[in-house]
């Protein structure tokens, strides 16, 4: 068993780390104070993403991506995830299922998205359909050669700065015929409504989107009718691994800041780091980080070695669950170690604390991950999780 990083892996990690330090971290306070970044700043970050060859790390080189292994993608997501205020969202990762699009769709959507000239959002959730995608009420009806979409989506992340949105709908309202469509943001009938304010600051807004008789051509259907659930699942798997990796980044940064704080702070005549209560907290943080990263990178390495798609789904859920829960605890402990300073918004731990809460909710709550894991155990046996392969 070789868990070491190759020289190439290390170079990628260092590149992502340097990029995050130079281009994301300096903008954290502007994002936190104003809830957005000035357009000029965004442009310069996007150029820096291209310059650092970190655009489309999840796609192959043929379409303009970086052709990275899953381990390498996790390294990049971990490093970029250290930045607060979702600034990692500027490091674009066009939805993975687009790799199976038609040649025409690849030219029209995927390639410009990989080049950071086009931004694509993905909309699944609705008022009554969150983790339960079978309850999606958005419909697609064939009319001549076109499709007519109707429905209301919630929490459409990134629609504020995308040009195209992928819409998960049910053909004729039939849950057994799910399909995903590529819809231009400015198509008549697509309106962006109420944009709720969230606890964390972020690049992406997550507004409601109404589709009223939105007409798209048949060339906007991704895959076939009936593929919708598999497409969305593939996207979920990728998003869950990215969350797991970013959570590790958040946990590592919080623990680093806390460690340096307690090494320097004196109370009752000694360093905080020399109180046993504090030593135990340091040990807990470090052990959680080691466990989370070990799980994440093991799953990533198995994916690189050709793990079966269904098992990827099974293990991605475990990685997302464990990393978001455990790193949430690490950030909480790191804040506690800072005492009153941990509550101040200028300190990274305060922002990480607000940022990390949503990771246990979006792309499937922790409870949904547990349902998936239990389902896999019942279907395939505990060995999926307990046996080394």
């Amino acid at each position, binding site marked *: 068993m070789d868990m070491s990083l190759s020289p190439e892996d290390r170079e990628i990690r260092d590149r992502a780390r340097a990029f995050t330090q130079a281009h994301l971290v300096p903008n954290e306070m502007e994002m936190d104070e104003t809830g957005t970044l000035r357009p000029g700043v965004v442009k310069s970050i996007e150029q820096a993403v291209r310059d650092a060859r970190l655009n489309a790390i999840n796609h192959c080189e043929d379409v303009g991506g970086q052709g990275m292994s899953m381990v390498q993608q996790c390294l990049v997501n971990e490093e970029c995830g250290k930045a607060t205020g979702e600034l990692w969202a500027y490091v674009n990762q066009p939805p993975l299922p687009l790799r199976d699009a038609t040649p025409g769709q690849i030219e029209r959507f995927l390639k410009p998205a990989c080049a950071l000239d086009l931004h694509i959002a993905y909309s699944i959730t609705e008022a*009554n359909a969150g983790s*339960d995608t079978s309850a999606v009420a958005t419909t697609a009806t064939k009319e001549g050669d076109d499709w007519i979409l109707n429905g209301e989506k919630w929490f459409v992340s990134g629609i504020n700065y995308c040009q195209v949105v992928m819409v998960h709908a049910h053909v004729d309202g039939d849950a057994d015929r799910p399909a995903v469509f590529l819809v231009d943001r400015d198509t008549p009938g697509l309106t962006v409504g109420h944009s709720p304010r969230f606890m964390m600051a972020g690049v992406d807004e997550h507004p409601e989107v109404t589709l009223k008789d939105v007409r798209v051509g048949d060339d906007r259907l991704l895959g076939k009718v009936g593929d919708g659930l598999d497409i969305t699942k593939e996207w979920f798997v990728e998003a869950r691994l990215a969350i797991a990796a970013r959570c590790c980044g958040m946990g590592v940064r919080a623990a680093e800041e806390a460690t340096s704080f307690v090494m320097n702070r004196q109370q*009752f005549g000694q360093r905080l780091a020399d109180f046993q209560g504090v030593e135990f907290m340091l040990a807990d943080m470090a052990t959680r980080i080691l466990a989370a990263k070990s799980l994440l990178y093991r799953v990533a390495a198995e994916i690189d070695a050709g793990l079966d798609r269904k098992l990827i789904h099974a293990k991605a859920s475990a990685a997302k669950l464990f990393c978001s829960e455990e790193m949430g605890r690490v950030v909480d402990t790191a804040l506690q170690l800072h005492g*009153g300073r941990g*509550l101040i*918004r200028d300190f990274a731990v305060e922002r990480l*604390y607000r940022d990390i809460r949503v990771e246990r*909710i979006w792309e499937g709550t922790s*409870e949904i991950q547990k349902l998936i894991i239990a389902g896999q155990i019942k279907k395939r046996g505990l060995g999926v999780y307990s046996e080394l392969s």
Partner: protein
Amino acid sequence: MNFNLTEEQQMIVDTTRSFVENELYPHEAEVERTGKLRRDLYEELKARAIEAGLYAANMPEEVGGAGLDTLTWVLYEKELGRANYALHWNCVARPSNILMACNEEQRERYTLPCVRGEKIDCMAMTEPGAGSDLRGMKATAVRDGDGWVLNGTKHFISHADEADFVIAYFASGEEDTPRGKKKLITSFIVDMGTPGFTVREGYRNVSHRGYTNSILEFDNCRIPDTQRLGEVHKGFEVANQWLGATRLQVASTCLGRAERALSHALQWSVDRQQFGQQICKFQGVSFKLADMAMELKAANLLTMEAAWKYDNGTVTEADMAMAKLKASEVLAMVADEAIQIHGGMGVMDELPLERIWRDARIERIWEGTSEIQRHIISREMLRPLGG
């Protein structure tokens, strides 16, 4: 042993609850979003709180307060604690009980105006280098003729920008003890506007938006001896004798907010349907609800018992530390699970949950971190055994 509320207690609970729901809740969204409590709104709500008899109800009757016993006061704090902190703390102020340490002349100038709502007090102990380790404070008070000269910096001073004066603690000397030199502390009342005393804007905080904290700078600030509170070098004794059950105040406001979060979670779990049924029908949700209610009840009983013992003169530091520790940690847990039950809705600011969750965070830190409470609890058990 009787766990029933008296008629009077029930009336105070009902009056306070209805004030909080009708007068404070409607303004929460504004304070949360702007991070500010408007002056005119503050004045208006304060007038209503005075009219309702809720303002400064913690203070003894002899100075014009409601003279609530500790248990009743805790019930009242619990109701107030349901609301945004800036709203309930500023508009329904509870002046520090330490004002009862004022001498007769100071009482006229400070205690009575605070109870009447004409003046606002604040309290300054913490320094950048001295948190729970108060004796590590660097701010000094030096005798100068018939007065004192104050120097130093205090931070994390709650609502100092709204206050008319501060009760502040300074190192006024040193004494030799078997364990080395120990600082002697004296407390003073310093009016805003005293030359050499400035209040700077503090830090933006994860919790309690709209409730400010400030940094206080004393630069050769000269005050007459008549501003001294209590005896020279007896600052901590003054605090210990008069400050009262501040930890129970933290505990009870936590309990109020936790109750509010739990009631949101219960309602949502009944209203929300997923996979063809109410989500409360899923064990994953109903077990969470059971744990939340059980933890909350335990914290409630712990706090009520400590308050009851306070009134009976049998309370110990550990009793109050346990109540503060448990209630603040239970609030964190209940708020966290309430968000989790709500899913995406939980982290949006349209429901009070995301802020109850953020607000919960400071409660495990101020008035002594959870770790300091554990230290107090264990020390009390171990000292008699020589540990």
